């Protein structure tokens, strides 16, 4: 089985994240880049499926030169090879542009299964899996907390507000995963050393048949009009128990419509 995992490098959520004033895009140089956390679960799931069913795991990442660190980590976890979609023309692409570019790369790589995290910690649109499925003409199985494959059938448990739905489709398919699905492994020393020898292919937009007028900031369908720093967090409400603490806590929760 040919599994492609899409991974994204995002700024470390533990550091201060900023937008660039000149084009209102994320300042990717200002913060340390890390693997988008949910994508690590996607890599882990891909590796487990490979261990159970055989095949090959390819990492696909679209991003600047720095994204190679993220690719290396996924390779150190155990993926077999990687494709780095890297072109200055892709800078500033919105979700539509990104899904187009990534889908073009996926068509070039070929796949039985595409796995990705259900959202990224930077933009948090959570739309990429659905957009990719649409562009690839493949079924989408999103928010998966469990994946099973039998022959060409794929079954997932899709988390919902009330529990989960059982969803079934046939391969090739696109799956997005949530953190309940597994416990991602940490790269071992052997994995780190092996990663150095694994092939990483770099594709520009021409290599992946990506039309320049469909991607990049200038061709985005969404536009950041303005932005401002998040206001500092206000002090919380303190309820001191004077015999009626429980009732007042309940009142507070009711006023916020939690209960």
């Amino acid at each position, binding site marked *: 089985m040919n599994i492609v995992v899409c991974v994204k490098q995002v700024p470390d959520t533990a550091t201060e994240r900023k937008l660039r004033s000149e084009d209102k895009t994320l300042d990717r140089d200002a913060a340390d880049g890390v693997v988008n956390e949910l994508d690590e679960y996607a890599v882990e799931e891909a590796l487990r499926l490979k261990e159970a069913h055989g095949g090959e795991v390819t990492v696909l990442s679209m991003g600047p030169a720095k994204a190679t660190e993220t690719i290396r980590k996924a390779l150190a976890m155990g993926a077999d090879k990687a494709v780095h979609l890297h072109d200055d023309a892709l800078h500033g692409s919105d979700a539509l542009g990104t899904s187009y570019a990534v889908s073009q790369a996926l068509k070039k790589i070929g796949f039985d299964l595409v796995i990705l995290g259900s959202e990224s910690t930077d933009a948090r649109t959570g739309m990429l899996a659905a957009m990719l499925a649409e562009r690839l003409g493949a079924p989408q199985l999103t928010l998966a907390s469990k994946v099973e494959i039998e022959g060409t059938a794929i079954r997932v448990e899709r988390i919902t507000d009330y529990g989960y739905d059982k969803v079934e489709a046939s391969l090739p398919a696109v799956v997005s995963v949530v953190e309940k699905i597994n416990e991602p492994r940490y790269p071992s020393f*052997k994995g*780190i*050393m092996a990663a150095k020898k694994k092939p990483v292919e770099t594709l520009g937009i021409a290599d992946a048949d990506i039309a320049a007028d469909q991607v990049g900031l200038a061709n985005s369908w969404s536009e950041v009009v303005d932005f401002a720093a998040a206001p500092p967090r206000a002090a919380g409400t303190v309820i001191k128990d004077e015999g009626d603490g429980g009732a007042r806590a309940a009142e507070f929760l009711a006023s916020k419509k939690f209960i």
Partner: protein
Amino acid sequence: MLNDEHVELRKSVEEFAREVVAPVIGDYYERCEFPYDVVRRMGAMGLFGLPVPEEYGGMGGDYFALCLALEELARVDSSVAITLEAAVSLGAMPILRYGTDEQKRRWLPGMAAGEILGAFGLTEPGGGSDVAGGMRTTAALDGGEWVINGSKAFITNSGTDITGVVAVAAITGRREDGRPEISTILVPSGTPGMTVSKKYSKVGWSASDTRELSFTDCRVPEENILGERGRGYAQFLQTLDEGRVAIAAVSVGLAQGCVDESLRYARERRAFGQEIGCYQAIQFKIVDMEARAHTARLAYYHAAERMVAGLPFKKEAAIAKLVASNAAMDNARDATQVFGGYGFMNEFPVGRFYRDAKILEIGEGTSEVQRMLIARELGLPT
């Protein structure tokens, strides 16, 4: 000094320590409970096999890699760091160095995966720094078996559910010069005649496993001897030389953990209208702590580099152990002071660091023993 793989390994262990160890270890520590689940996950990422060759199930790395992993773990917690240190440098390494191929095949794959832990039974209740002179444990050959009698004290990893084997140093005869002949014998867990006492109640390292062992006519096959008969003394001297570099790495981790915690606290704690980090009294403490951690790190890097390169490293290892354990103790004291009353509370990591630091100046050679070794290496008259 570090190559790319070492840097990446260090990062990988740093993430593991922060994400897996830090959130849970305080509770294990409080309950004096061995953290099996954390150890299982350390095993899954290959930490127990770092310096073990791939043919025995290891990672094919080197002792330097092990030291980097130890430092990163100890930045967060010393109990798990010492569990790894003892399992690898005292448990697996002697078997790797002195064992027969059969012994290696029997024990190393499980050890490298962290599925079984090895321990090294050297110190005795009356031993300590005078390890050879204080040794009373004997092993005598009888009908193709070693019969072991005696007891061992402060043996790390010797009583966990996953302890597989203890290498026991014992007197196996007398030399011509009248001194004891010491050999090392592998005693699998559960061998009749070996009694594992209940865990010690310790000042620190509370989530690690430390026991007293006693042997009463404990019989193991003759082929369980590790290496040559009579080589026990030389074996544990070499094991301890290496272990000193590892303990130095653990010490540097603790010293750095004190800096990490103090930096965070100095930025958030306010007194007299501003963050306490604005005050020079706090700044200078943290600066001194950083300087100690940094210089101690250079000392152990240097010793580890020489060891890995096959160069003599006895003096460098002793210096690294001496200065690093000193740095750990000083930093723990200063970090506790930065935290004030909160530093005296067990729920804060610095409270744990304070309790964990002292043993670093004692275990695997006291600071006094390190000074003796350095004096000898300097050629001072004895």
